[in-house]
């Protein structure tokens, strides 16, 4: 029987919980695959910076020098605008809805369709669950408070905030803390309670807004070179698929577990004030988001197709969720 030695690069640095280490993480995925295949498929994992810089995995897999890369699809938005939708969409679906769309609502077919011409294939391999709005030095009471607010916020959400007068700042992860602590920026979005506490953001700002309207869930992308994938026998392909699915579930379960603990600790022991944005602010964000998404979709036919599929599925799923989970939460 053939055996394979592959390489996987990662957009996140060594040691990052969830993104690199821990239950359902990419390194866990590599271990799982090795165990399930009896060592026939060995994947050597390289965190960001070990083999290539953080955001170069897409080209590396495309070029064939590595077979897999772990990241978030929205990092490739400059290459494939529609890739955004395979990570998260502002005011979009949570973990359940996103997976329902990907696995059974046509999401993965669209993903394959977009990536195949580039010699790529992708699988969902993790999810952070609901993220947070972010950290603010001053409370947000109305939309007017967004005017000239300096915020570290990447991606589509940044565009939405910008429309409401926010001054969007791009800063590398390591400079978020010093910049927020000194007031160079007034607000910052990072991940969720566990990861944010690890960065120490609670020592830089006290207002922690919820919920993650910008990232209601966040899918980890396992990117695979199509040529490498096709070279695998069917049983190894099945093992890779199953391990990715297992990580998708396990990483989310782990996130739910540690975020609960972290949130409680932040609020009860570290003086953090957790709050929901005022309803009229959320409404405004939502309406701007719709315009921003529609405009982006209109500019790119692929994006339009994915947008329509996602939104169509979400409308249906919302009807169901409103009668199931929403009711359940309010019991």
């Amino acid at each position, binding site marked *: 029987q053939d055996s394979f030695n592959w390489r996987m690069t990662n957009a996140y640095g060594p*040691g990052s919980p969830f993104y690199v280490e821990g239950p359902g993480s990419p390194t866990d995925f590599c271990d799982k695959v090795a165990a399930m295949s009896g060592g026939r498929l060995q994947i050597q994992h390289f965190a960001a*910076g070990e083999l290539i*810089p953080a955001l170069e995995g897409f080209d590396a897999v495309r070029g064939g*020098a590595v077979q897999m890369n772990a990241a978030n699809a929205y990092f490739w938005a400059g290459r494939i605008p529609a890739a955004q939708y395979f990570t998260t969409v502002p005011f979009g679906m949570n973990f359940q809805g996103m997976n329902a769309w990907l696995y059974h609502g046509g999401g993965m077919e669209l993903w394959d369709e977009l990536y195949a011409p580039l010699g790529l294939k992708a699988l969902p391999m993790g999810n952070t669950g609901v993220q947070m709005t972010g950290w603010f030095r001053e409370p947000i009471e109305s939309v007017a408070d967004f005017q000239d607010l300096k915020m570290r916020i990447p991606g589509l959400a940044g565009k939405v905030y910008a429309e409401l007068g926010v001054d969007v700042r791009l800063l590398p992860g390591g*400079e978020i803390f010093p910049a927020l602590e000194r007031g160079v920026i007034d607000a910052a979005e990072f991940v969720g309670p566990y990861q944010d*506490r690890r960065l120490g953001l609670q020592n830089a700002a006290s207002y922690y807004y919820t919920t993650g309207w910008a990232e209601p869930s966040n899918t980890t992308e396992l990117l695979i070179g199509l040529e490498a994938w096709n070279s695998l026998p069917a049983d190894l392909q099945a093992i890779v698929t199953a391990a990715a699915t297992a990580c998708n579930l396990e990483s989310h379960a782990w996130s739910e577990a540690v975020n609960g603990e972290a949130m409680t600790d932040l609020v009860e022991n570290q003086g953090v004030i957790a709050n929901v944005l005022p309803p009229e602010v959320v409404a405004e964000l939502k309406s701007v988001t719709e315009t921003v998404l529609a405009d982006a979709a209109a500019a790119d036919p692929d994006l339009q197709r994915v947008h329509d599929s996602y939104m169509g599925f979400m409308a249906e799923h919302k009807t169901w969720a409103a009668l199931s989970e929403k009711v359940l939460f309010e019991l």
Partner: protein
Amino acid sequence: MPMMEILALCMIGAFFLLLLAGVPVAICLGVTGLAFGYAGFGGMLFTLMPSRIFGVVTNYTLLALPLFIFMGIMLEKSRIAEDLLEVIGLAMGGLRGGMALAIILVGVLMGAASGVVGATVVTVGLIALSPLLRRGYDTGVAAGIICASGTLGQIIPPSLVLILLADIMGESVGTLFAAALFPGLMLAGLFVAYILILGIVSPDSVPAIPAEERAEVSGRDLAVRLVKVVLPPIALIALVLGSIIGGVAAPTEAASMGAFGALVLAALAGRLNWPTLRETVRSAFVTSAMVFLILIFAQPFGLAFRGLGGERLVQDAFGAMPGGLNGQLLFLMILLFVLGFFLEWIEISYIALPLFLPVFLASGVDMAWIAILVGMNLQTSFLTPPFGWALFFLKGVAPPEVKTSQIYRGVLPFIAIQLFGLVLVFLFPGLALWLPEAIGW
């Protein structure tokens, strides 16, 4: 030992041979990396090289490098720096080593304003080396004090090293910044003590400005000159630091305040004419490129080291690790120190730390303390010959008559001092842990 690991060792050996033969550092790195990498794993992995190079030249945090260098060259060209050290030397009176003490202070201030390796060494080297030599300082001592003061910025926050360690070790950046403050200042203090002792033991290596020359300058005259020449550069550094503390700029972009400020300063002093500007622009370009050339050509070497499984050499060494927390820590320190002879700090951190992390996590010791020990150790590795970044950077801006051997010899005492500082933090963890505890970070 597998073939690949033997090749990795050969690559390191060949690198040292070429380096000692006088082949430029960048070319040594590039040619050994490509040759041994190709021999080991063929061409495929090298298709990743453009990605690595792109990563270096678009690295946001490296913005501080050309910005600080611009400031340094501007200060040098407009002769502000030279006047500064002269006046400080005069003001220190008969105290031997006075100018060196001023350089330590500049190192601390620059270190508090920047976290990038090359930026501080190059800038301090640019402004301080020539004046020191002209005043009769021993070349080795001058080079040593500049390299050592310049690398202080690696431990004094903000610091790229600490940001990376925070990421790897799961500590918050703020905690590490707070933990590093006292150890960093302590090192500076140790340097000061060394210079003062040197002034007594070996007065000729750190001479004071001759008494007759000092006598020519009246106290009143000196006071005026102090205000006129000391104020502007201090104001520049204060501008950079102030813009960080005052919430005007994030650490990396704050460097622009220094560079822009230097332009404004030169303009105000009426020294900003076309030839000066052109000269400044060109030599800042060359000096930044000197640093980038080495960083860029380190990429084939780093890629080959990885591709040849060089990290397995470290893993093998790890297998020989002694038991007990102190033994393990000592082992890590020695390993980091040895790796510092031929690898750059990012590669070292990525290769060695993940191996040791589980051991330290299981032992339950404070990771912030470990991080500071690692940070101080890495900082020392900038100074260790033959492959010390700080040494190369200083060589790059030094006049040709300054020889590598003088620089190598000059840093030795400072390496010893840093190791002594490391031992102090090891014996008294409170040096690092007290501040974060006290301010609740």
